[in-house]
C-alpha cells in the first residue's frame, strides 16, 4: 500500500521542529506502524538523510517505550493498542498520516518523536512503592488478599508508563498514571502503612514536574493502551482527601530528604 507520512522532525530540544512529508510506496498491511517507520528509515539512510528518531523497544505492547501521536491520537486510532502493535491494515491505501511526538511540558522533546518521560520515574520515586527491603518479607501466605482487591490492584498495576494519558489530556495531567499506582498499592494490605504519605508525596511531585490538573475530560482513559479505568483518578482524589484530613497524616508522612 501507498502511504503519505507527515512526520515531526526536530533535531534537538532547542530546534523549533516541523512536519516533513514522506512518501512510502512499499508498505504492507501486515506491517506494524513501527515497521513502517523502519522501512522509511532504511530508505532515508541510503539517501544520505538522517533517519527518524523514535522510542521503541519490546515491540509487543508491554515496555511502554513507543510514544507517537498518530493522526492526533496517542498510539493511533486503534483502541487498547500501543503503536508497536498497531498494524497498517487499520489504515486506508493512499492515506495521509500525521505523526507527532507526545506533547506535554513535562515531556520535553529530545529529538524527532523521542520525548523525555523521566518525570514519571521521579513521580514513582516520590512514593510509588511499598517499603520492603530485601529480606524483611514475611511468609507470602501470612496476609491473604481478597480476590476482588487483588484483581483491582492488578488491573491498575498493568499501567505501562507510556505517557499516552498525558499526551491525550488537554491539561497535560498525569492523573491517570498517578491514580493507577495509588490504586494498585492502596488496594493491597501491604500498601496500607504508607497509603497517606504516598499519595501526598506523589501528588506534590506530580505538580512539581509541571503536569496540569485533572478536569475529568476522560481523554486519558480512552487513549490508555492498557485500558486503565477513570475511576483510579477517583481513588486518587479520595485517598488525597483522606490523607489531608486524617490525623494519621502527620505521623505517616516521613520528611523527605
Amino acid at each position, binding site marked *: 500500500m501507498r502511504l503519505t507520512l507527515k512526520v515531526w522532525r526536530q533535531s534537538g530540544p532547542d530546534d523549533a521542529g516541523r512536519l516533513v512529508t514522506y512518501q512510502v510506496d512499499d508498505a504492507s498491511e*501486515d506491517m506494524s506502524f513501527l515497521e513502517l517507520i523502519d522501512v522509511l528509515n532504511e530508505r*532515508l539512510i541510503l539517501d544520505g538523510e*538522517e533517519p527518524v528518531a523514535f522510542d521503541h523497544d*519490546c515491540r509487543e505492547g508491554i*515496555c511502554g517505550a513507543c510514544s507517537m501521536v498518530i493522526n492526533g491520537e496517542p498510539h493511533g486510532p486503534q483502541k487498547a493498542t500501543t503503536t508497536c502493535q498497531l498494524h497498517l491494515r487499520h489504515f486506508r491505501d493512499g492515506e495521509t498520516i500525521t505523526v507527532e511526538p507526545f506533547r506535554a511540558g513535562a515531556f520535553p522533546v529530545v529529538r524527532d518523536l523521542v520525548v523525555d518521560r523521566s518525570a514519571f520515574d521521579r513521580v514513582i*520515586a516520590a512514593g510509588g512503592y511499598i517499603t520492603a527491603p530485601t529480606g524483611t518479607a514475611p511468609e507470602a501466605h501470612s496476609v491473604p488478599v481478597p480476590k476482588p482487591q487483588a484483581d483491582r490492584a492488578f488491573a491498575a498495576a498493568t499501567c505501562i508508563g507510556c505517557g499516552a494519558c498525558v499526551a491525550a489530556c488537554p491539561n497535560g495531567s498525569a492523573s491517570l498514571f498517578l491514580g493507577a499506582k495509588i490504586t494498585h498499592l492502596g488496594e493491597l494490605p501491604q500498601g496500607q502503612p504508607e497509603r497517606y504519605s504516598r499519595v501526598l508525596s506523589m501528588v506534590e511531585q506530580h505538580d512539581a514536574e509541571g503536569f496540569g490538573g485533572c478536569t475529568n475530560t476522560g481523554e486519558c482513559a480512552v487513549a490508555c493502551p492498557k485500558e486503565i479505568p477513570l475511576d483510579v483518578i477517583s481513588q486518587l482524589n479520595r485517598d488525597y482527601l483522606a490523607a489531608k484530613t486524617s490525623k494519621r497524616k502527620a505521623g505517616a508522612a516521613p520528611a523527605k530528604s
Partner: protein
Amino acid sequence: MYSDYIVGEPIADTKAPDGPIEGRWEARRFGVKLVNPANKRKLTIIVVGTGLAGASAAASLAELGYRVKSFCYQDSPRRAHSIAAQGGINAAKNYRNDGDSVHRLFYDTVKGGDFRARESNVHRLAEISVQIIDQCVAQGVPFAREYGGLLDNRSFGGTQVSRTFYAKGQTGQQLLLGAYQALQRQVDAGGVEMFARHEMLELIVADGRARGIVVRDMVTGEIETHLGDAVVLATGGYGNVFYLSTNAKGCNVTASWRAHRKGAYFANPCYTQIHPTCIPVSGDHQSKLTLMSESLRNDGRVWVPKAKGDTRAPADIPEDERDYFLERRYPSFGNLVPRDIASRAAKTVCDEGRGVGPGGLGVFLDFADAIQRMGRAAVAAKYGNLFQMYQRITGEDPYEVPMRIYPAVHYTMGGLWVDYDLQSTIPGLFVVGEANFSDHGANRLGASALMQGLADGYFILPVTIGDYLARGVPPMANDHPAVREAVTSVQERINKLLSINGSRTVDSFHRELGRLMWDECGMERTEAGLRKALERIPELRQEFWENVKVPGSADTLNQSLEKAGRVADFLELAELMCLDALHRAESCGGHFRAESQTPDGEALRDDENFSYVAAWEFTGTGQPPVLHKEPLVFEYVHPSQRSYA
C-alpha cells in the same frame, strides 16, 4: 578435535563449598567475609542493566548501604525486557500439597537443563525460590489469587506439580515493577544514582580488577567514565544475534562482549532456547517476533497438511489429509512435548515443504476441537487475551481459522562464566541474570528465568559481592592508563563507525547475520553448516567495517550509531557461538546436532565427552580462542536420557 581453537587449562568453580548440597549456600553465607556497615557507604558498585536481576541487585545493594550507580539504555529502568515475560515464576512453596519440594525443583531444573548445569547453583536457586515469592508479595506484586485470598498456582512447562506463581500473562511486568519501585525508592533516598539512556560501551579493567565502565550518554553523545569498587553486569541475553527473536529491539551483547574481550570467559555461547509458539514471520519487513504463551498447547492441536505445497484453506483440508505430527511422533506427550522437541518437529515438517502461511514457515495450532469440546465461551475465558493479541497482529480470527505458529529464539542459556559467587574470571566483575551462564544448563524450564534473575539480584549477589569488597580493593587514580585507554578505544570505534560511510545499512548486515545464524546455528546444527557459517561470518564482519553506512554525528541522539555498535559486537559473538556449537558434537537441551541422534531421530547426548561447561577465553578478533573446560559432577541427580515418546 578442531584446529580453530586452543584447549587451555581446565577451569574450576572454587567458591562452591563442599558437603551435603542442602547446606552449601548456608555454608557459603557463613564463609563470606563481611563488610563493616560503616565502610559500605564508601564503596561504589556499578550495576549495568535494570531488568529483574539488575534492578533487584541495585535496590538491595543500596539498602545494604553501598553507593550504587545504575545504568540502562532505555529511557526508564522500568522498560528493561524482563517486563515482557508472560508465564510465571517457579517457587518450591508446595502450596498445592502435590509433592513439591526444594529438592524436586532442584531435580527438575537439573534434568530440564539436560545435565549441563551445576548442581550447587541449581540447588541454591531452588532454596531461594521460596523467599522470592515472599519478597515480591511484600512489595505489592499483585499475583493471581484464589477466592480465599491465597496465592494461586499453575503448572507450567511440562512439570507435574503446580509451582508457578503468576499475574495473568504479565508476570514479568509485575515482578519488574516491584523491583523498579524498590530501585526508585533508593534513587529518592540517595542510595542509587540512576543513569537512564546511558549505554555501556567498555569495561575498565585496571591492575587485573574490574574498576569501572565507559558509557555513552545517548542523548548528548558524551562519553563518560564511571569508576567504582566492583562492576555488576545485568545486561540480559544475546538472542538478537539472530536478528529476529522475541527479545526487545534494543537487547544486545555489547556489555558482555566488551567484558569478554577484557578477559571474562564466555560460557556455552551456543546454548539458545527456541520457543515453539511464536507468531510467524509475515514478510521481509518483520522486525521482531511475538511470543504467545505456551499454555496454548494445552488445548490446541498442532498440524500441517500431509501433502507438500498444499495451499488450500485449512478448513478445506479433510481430516485424513492432515498430519498431527506431534501426536503422531510422541503419542504419550502429544502436543505437550518440551519446547525444544516441539520446535524442532515444526522445523522438520517445514523443511519438508509442508509448512503453512507466507513463505511456508509455520504450522497450524488448531482450536476447532477445543471449541467443540469446551464451547467457545470456555476457550475465550482461558485464552481470550492471547487470541486477541494474535488477531491484532495477524488480522486473523483464531476462533474461525487455526492459528499459525513458528518457533523463535527466546532465551540464551549461555553467557559470561561465573563462579558460585557470580563473579566472572575478572576479579570484581559480577554477572547476574540471563547475562551469566549459570543455572539453566542447556535448556531452561518455563518460569525459571524470572526466578533466576531475582534470586541473583535480591539474595545471592548482595551476599557474595561483599566477600570480594571486604577483602579490600586498592584505591585507583581517575586518570589510570586503563581509563584513558578505554575511553580512547570507545571514541576511536565511534569515529570509525561514523566515517566508513559505505552503502549498506546496519540493519541489512544484522538481517543477513541473523538469517545465517538461524539457518546454521539455530534449532538444528550440522558440522558442514557450522563450518560454512564460520567462513561467512568473518567475511561479513569485514564487509561491515568497510561498507556500513552510519548517518548522523556522535554528539546527539543517534540511533543508527547505537545499532551499529551493537551489531559490530554481534558479528564477533556469532563466530564464537558457531565455534562452540561446532566443538560440542552432541545433541543436548535446546541444541540438536544432526550428527548426534538416536536411530529414531531423537537427540543423543554424549556425557562421556561433553559433560562440561565450555568457557571461552578471548585472544583477539578472528584469533582462535582458548577453551577452558569446567567438568560437571552429578552427585544427586544422575544423568539419564530424556524420553518423551
